[in-house]
């Protein structure tokens, strides 16, 4: 098998060198926690409820590119597609804590769950209060009655936006946790894989998909989806994906949503806009309004081609936090 074509130095130092580059890309607004693959805001206000995010690297700009004003206060970076170790999370958490507790927000994967839980135990020993909200938006991963088996994918983007806003405004960890749980209960995502990404350290693809095949529902690391099928039109793929999303919550006539179409890495903006056209036709037919549309590249899987569609049902409170201005390397709103 040939090695994927990437411009790297030492493949075993990709995370280290990426963190160094990301710190510099923040022009001083975000700094590294000394000795750790963790980044934190420089100007976290005193008395603020802290929001700590994190997960495996290789998905840039998620997670560590979402640190900034009205977004996350810090992020713990794991190796590529692997959860950060407890030491990294613990160090990042101590660096963002401002006396009002910390909300851990991350995707629901066995590795992340265990490592963040171990870190939460360590912080408990330090006398720091931690609450945990796991994003479980991937409808293809498990049926609704087994939501604990669902992975976190591009729903992370809206979750960090909304919870980042809530943590900037509310002084109580209880309130921030309540809003996070409400947002999480209302967010749904489904992805489609077109071609695989690869692991920088081995150069090997994370899954194998034939040249004429796509897989609807595939996860961000090549986890199997709903169905492997022959490649078809944008409209047919959008119909399948939106159908699965609408049926799941379920979204209903009169609902207003936030929409995200997220590029896994190598899909063109042109393709995503063509998909968006069809998504909006279906939503209009279903009587569902779109409050904000986000189309871009946020949760990537290296050079994987494919995209995901995310819907979050909004109420007045969630809309307020979604609309707040924010700034970070990976996500900005005026």
């Amino acid at each position: 098998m040939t090695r994927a074509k990437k411009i790297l130095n030492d493949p075993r130092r990709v995370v280290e060198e990426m963190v160094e580059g990301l710190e510099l890309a923040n022009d001083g607004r975000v700094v590294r926690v000394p000795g750790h693959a963790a980044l934190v805001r420089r100007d976290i206000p005193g008395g603020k409820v802290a929001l700590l995010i994190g997960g495996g690297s290789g998905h840039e700009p998620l997670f560590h590119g979402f640190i900034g004003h009205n977004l996350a206060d810090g992020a713990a970076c794991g190796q590529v597609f692997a959860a950060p170790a407890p030491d990294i999370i613990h160090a990042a958490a101590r660096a963002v804590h401002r006396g009002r507790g910390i909300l851990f927000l991350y995707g629901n994967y066995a590795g992340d769950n265990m490592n963040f839980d171990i870190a939460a135990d360590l912080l408990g020993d330090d006398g720091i209060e931690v609450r945990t909200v796991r994003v479980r938006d991937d409808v293809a991963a498990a049926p609704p009655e087994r939501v604990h088996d669902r992975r976190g994918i591009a729903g992370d983007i809206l979750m960090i936006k909304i919870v980042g806003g809530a943590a900037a405004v509310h002084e109580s960890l209880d309130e921030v946790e309540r809003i996070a749980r409400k947002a999480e209960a209302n967010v749904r995502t489904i992805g489609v894989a077109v071609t695989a990404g690869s692991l920088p350290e081995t150069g090997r693809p994370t899954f194998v998909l034939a040249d004429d095949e796509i897989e609807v529902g595939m996860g961000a690391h090549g986890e199997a989806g709903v169905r492997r099928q022959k490649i078809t039109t944008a409209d047919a793929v959008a119909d399948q994906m939106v159908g699965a999303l609408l049926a799941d919550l379920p979204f209903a006539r009169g609902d207003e949503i936030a929409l995200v179409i997220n590029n896994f890495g190598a899909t063109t903006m042109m393709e995503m806009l063509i998909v968006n056209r069809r998504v909006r036709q279906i939503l209009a037919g279903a009587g569902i309004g779109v409050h904000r549309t986000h189309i871009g590249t946020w949760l990537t899987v290296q050079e994987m081609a494919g995209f995901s569609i995310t819907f979050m049902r909004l109420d007045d409170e969630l809309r307020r936090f979604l609309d707040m201005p924010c700034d970070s390397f990976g996500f900005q709103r005026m």
Partner: protein
Amino acid sequence: MKGALDGEGTRALLQAAAAAILSGVDRLTEADMATGDGDHGIGMRRGFEAAVAALSGLEAPSPALALKAVGTAVMASTGGAAGAVFGTWFRAGARPLEGQGTLDGAGLATFLETGLEAVCRRGGAAEGQKTMIDALAPAARAARAAAGAGLGPALAAAAAAAGAGAEATRAMLATTGKARSLGERSRGHIDPGALSVTLILGAMRDHLGAG
């Protein structure tokens, strides 16, 4: 075969286990490519390279200190589910051995049983879900059954049981972790975490047999 090891002996035993992981990286990668995202081998390499360094840095270790040093290094350096699971195994398993000058058959059984219990609690997983628990649990039972005969026989029994347990994961359906979503496609492949348990215990048995 030896009936027990002191702290220095335990350190050498663990260095042999780490060497087996480091030379098995490609096998672990291949196994994880089949059911996961292919990073188990490189994660375990990071963890056990750190374990080798930690073991070398210990001054006059007890068996518990040597085991804990491996667990702490693996937990801090591996990352992912593997770091939490293998780090928890060694760290929790070392705890009841604190204050003991030697590692014997009963000590090995206690290390495996206590580690297993902590891993199951941390991961919310049990036997039969196609994870490293399917190798560790039978190993702990076999070690306890052979504990009275000394460390050598207990390790031999544990390694054999781990190997059989890992082999049995081929027929299992993954119901936890990233491989869960593969459903039926996860069948036919050995679980990479179970394979790692087998490499570790097998290398310990071989080290003791050779020494």
